[in-house]
Every structure is written in structure tokens, then in C-alpha cells.
């Protein structure tokens, strides 16, 4: 499950550190104590920045780095598609073998496919993605704001 890509992101995280944002959330993974504080900055419906600070295992921290790399600069609709595809992959219990179409959408995030076989670690991988979804709901209007982890 520890793909080289994951270890690279863990050792050299992208976009780490808290910067100016429209909304901030703090999510925890109570079973293992992973934590993330995440801010989103929107320019209309374009994601201007996702900044974060956190502590936790290599899976949770690498996943936040991949999220930053994938989502910053994207339009919300496209980002939501990426998030939903990643969620589908992580909930697949190892049954989805990512194809080219999925790889085009998820890029480095396909490296987490192996994590989906380990139920205890799926929450680690999803922590920052759920935080991003929550922060986005808060930043773009509270109507559909929800707060939950996977």
C-alpha cells in the first residue's frame, strides 16, 4: 500500500501551511488521532487555494498533499468530480482496478487504490477530502453545509 508516490508526497508535501481562506475546518480521525486544519479560498467557483496543517500518518498527510496538487486551480464542478471519484475508489474495498479514465481524473491519487483494501486506513486517506468538502460547503453558502467524516 505504500506506493512510492505516497511516500514522496509524505516527505515533500505540496502546499502545506495555513494561508488566507474563506472558511476553515478542523477534522479528526478519532480512531488513530490524525488531525487536519484546512482552509479553502475561492475566486468565484474557481479554487484559488487549499491550505492545511495537520499531523498524522503518512497516508493522511500524503493524501492532503495530493488533494492540494489536484484541486488548486480547478473549477468547483471538476473538483467535485475528482472528490467523488476518489471517494468511490477508496470505498471500493480493493475491488476497483483504476483504468485509464480514472487515472486521468485522479492522477497521483490513484496511488491510494491499495489503501482501500485496509478498512482501518481508508479514513486516513479520506480525512482531508472530507475536510475540503465541508470547508467548501461552508465557504460557498451554509445551505448544504454538512460536517462529517467518512
Amino acid at each position, binding site marked *: 500500500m505504500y506506493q512510492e508516490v505516497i*511516500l514522496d508526497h509524505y516527505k515533500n508535501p505540496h502546499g502545506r501551511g495555513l494561508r488566507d481562506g474563506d472558511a476553515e475546518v478542523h477534522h479528526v480521525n478519532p480512531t488513530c488521532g490524525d488531525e487536519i486544519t484546512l482552509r479553502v479560498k475561492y475566486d468565484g467557483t474557481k479554487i484559488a487555494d487549499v491550505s492545511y496543517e495537520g499531523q498524522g*500518518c503518512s497516508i493522511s498527510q500524503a493524501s492532503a498533499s495530493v488533494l492540494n496538487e489536484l484541486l488548486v486551480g480547478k473549477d468547483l464542478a471538476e473538483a467535485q468530480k475528482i472528490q467523488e471519484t476518489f471517494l468511490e475508489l477508496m470505498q471500493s474495498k480493493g475491488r476497483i482496478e483504476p483504468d485509464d479514465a480514472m487515472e486521468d481524473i485522479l492522477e497521483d491519487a490513484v496511488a491510494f487504490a491499495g489503501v482501500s483494501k485496509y478498512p482501518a*486506513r481508508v479514513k486516513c486517506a479520506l480525512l482531508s477530502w472530507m475536510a475540503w468538502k465541508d470547508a467548501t460547503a461552508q465557504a460557498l453558502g451554509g445551505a448544504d453545509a454538512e460536517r462529517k467524516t467518512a
Partner: protein
Amino acid sequence: MTQLPGLLDTEAIRKDFPVLDRVVHDGKKLVYLDNAATSQKPRQVLDALSEYYERYNANVHRGVHVLAEEATALYEGARDKVAAFINAPSRDEVIFTKNASESLNLVANMLGWADEPYRVDHETEIVITEMEHHSNIVPWQLLAQRTGAKLKWFGLTDDGRLDLSNIDEIITEKTKIVSFVLVSNILGTVNPVEAIVRRAQEVGALVCIDASQAAPHMPLDVQALQADFVAFTGHKMCAPTGIGVLWGRQELLEDLPPFLGGGEMIETVSMHSSTYAPAPHKFEAGTPPIAQAVGLGAAIDYLQSIGMDKILAHEHALTEYAVQKLSEVPDLRIIGPTTAEDRGAAISFTLGDIHPHDVGQVLDEQGIAVRVGHHCARPVCLRYGIPATTRASFYLYSTPAEIDALVEGLEHVRNFFG
């Protein structure tokens, strides 16, 4: 093979535990070092469970048919075994629960609903410690919130022991109950019972001891402890899950009110009110975990056939060996006492800044099962400024070779993330 003084004949013992023969992850021999979470079960216990269901299964304390009488005798026989195992003055002081958490919640609720002089209210104080398992923190927080009582606790020293320097300020005339762990599940510390009990008795406070990590590993004598309540669970001592014990002093159990109401805990019931059965039945509402109690009885027979003092000596030798070997691993920091003195066989540690989940996962790939995380004792992690720990914990079937495998596994982890 490493020979240490006091070791049990693990080659023979391991034959009793079928699961220890398992291989995992394509041929890796299982190295099970997660005994503080739950122990494995010997064949003798598994046989007792299936024999109960195959030959005797019936509900207890009701019905006049053969099976009901035999099932009742087996269930109550298990109570006798527990009473003897912990040197209880009376079998009626042994209450079966589903686990230690339920036992501790039961004590907290007895005291919350009690009349004077036991009643916990807004003018009184509850004392616990910073090294408690969440199961000995949260019930008392709930009780404090519901009654307005003040919750106080002993802090920890840097080397993982209770800081009793301010014991006279923590335990005062206002203290109604002092509840603390005998052996810490995260630090491994064996706590100084006598000093705490003496102070509690001075001020007339009750004492509750969480013996979950003690009962499986050492002789337990509730009379010698001089506590008022002692809680532990079966599944950490070779018994099935779903069976726990609360021992309480008889006069207290007579005076204190029931918590759960239902079948089996009553004397007579009318639509207006009920009277209650004497202890222990007053505290055992509903159909109890019968097969599980029988399994606990079989586990006690098994442990006693080996000898609790011998199990203690075995684990002490292993712990001494393990703390020494682990302290030779670069960047490894033991969280808790760094010697085997007054220490149980659960050893928590951090490894550089590698997250314990990653440590645990890479060890698992080598077949080594450890526990990672907060160990349901998050305040301890906060106290020592760490997000979590990796914990290796031993039992009567653990071997020095397994400790060697752990140390080798940790080298592999360091290389992997280094």
C-alpha cells in the same frame, strides 16, 4: 533461543492456542503482540464454549427442567471460580457484567443514585488519574456532569508514574470515590495501591480499582487490595468477549441501588413498585452472558493450572528483556517506565517521527500484530506531547523470539521511512 530465568514452557503452552499457528500475509508467521487489547483463547476455553452449547444450553435461574438446572449450575459455578480467583470473601460479591467498562459504569451509576452516605452530589468530589483508560474517565465525567460533583485527578511524572506529591490536596474530606487503574494499559505502570487506599480510607472515600490489565497477568486478591470495588474483563484473560466482572464489598452491594432494571434482578413486581433480589442478582438484569461466564470459568481453570505467580514471573522476564532490547533501537522512546520494575507487560513507544499507524502497518506486513493509536487513553498522549504510540504487549505464550522479531521489524520500519 534466548533463555531467560522464570520463563514458562511456551512450546507446550502455545499448543493450546490454535490461532498462534496462523500464518498471515503469504506465509509470515503470526507474532501476536496485542495482548493488552485482547488475549487469544486456549482450546480448553473453546471446548467449554462448544460443550456448553452442545449439551446444556438453557436460560438460567428459571425453569425446572434438566437443562435449565445444569446451565444454572454451570453459570453459578463460574461465579464460584471467579470468587476464588480473586480471593473474594463471598461469592455473592461477584457481579457478572459484559466488560470492565460496564462494571465501571455500574459503580458510577450506583453512586449517582445512592442515598447518603454514598451519594455523589454537587458538594462532593470524584478522584481519578491522568493514566486512566477512557472507560475509567468518561463514566466519572458523566456522573460529575449529572450531579454537579467536581472531578479531580492525579497527574503523571515524566517517567510514567502517578504523581502523588499532592495526594492530600487531591483526596480530601469532600472525596466520595477514588477510582484508578492497577496496571496502566498504555504505560504499563503498576500503581501504588496502598498509598492511595490509605489516604482514601482516612477521608472515608470509597475506592474502585480497574484491574483489567492486572487480572490476566498476576495474582489478584481483592482483600489484600482493600478496595471497595474491583473491575475487570474476561476477554483479556483467555475468556470470550462479552463477560466482565465487578467485585464489590457485600455491605455496599446491599445498600446501593440497582442500575439496570429487568428480569432476574427482582424479588416481587407489581404495577406500582418492585422489590429487588439480593446481590449479585440485583445488578444482573436480563438474561446474562451464560456461555461467556462458563468460558471465563474455563479460562480461570486454565490460568490456575499454570499458576498466576508463574505467569507474572514469565511476563516480568519478557518485559525486562523487551525494555532492554527496545532501548537499543535508535530513535525509539519508551512512553512509560523504562525498567521492568513495577511494570506490566505492555510497552508503548514512539519511533522517531514515524507515525505509529505507519509503524503498525509495516510491522503487520511482516506478520507482527501490535496496537497503534491512543489506546483509549488520549490524556496520556496529550501529557507526553505525542499524537499516538505503538504498543507491544505480552502474555503467557509470548516468547523472547517474538521480541527479537519485533526489534527486527522496527529496523525494517526505520529503513522504510528513513
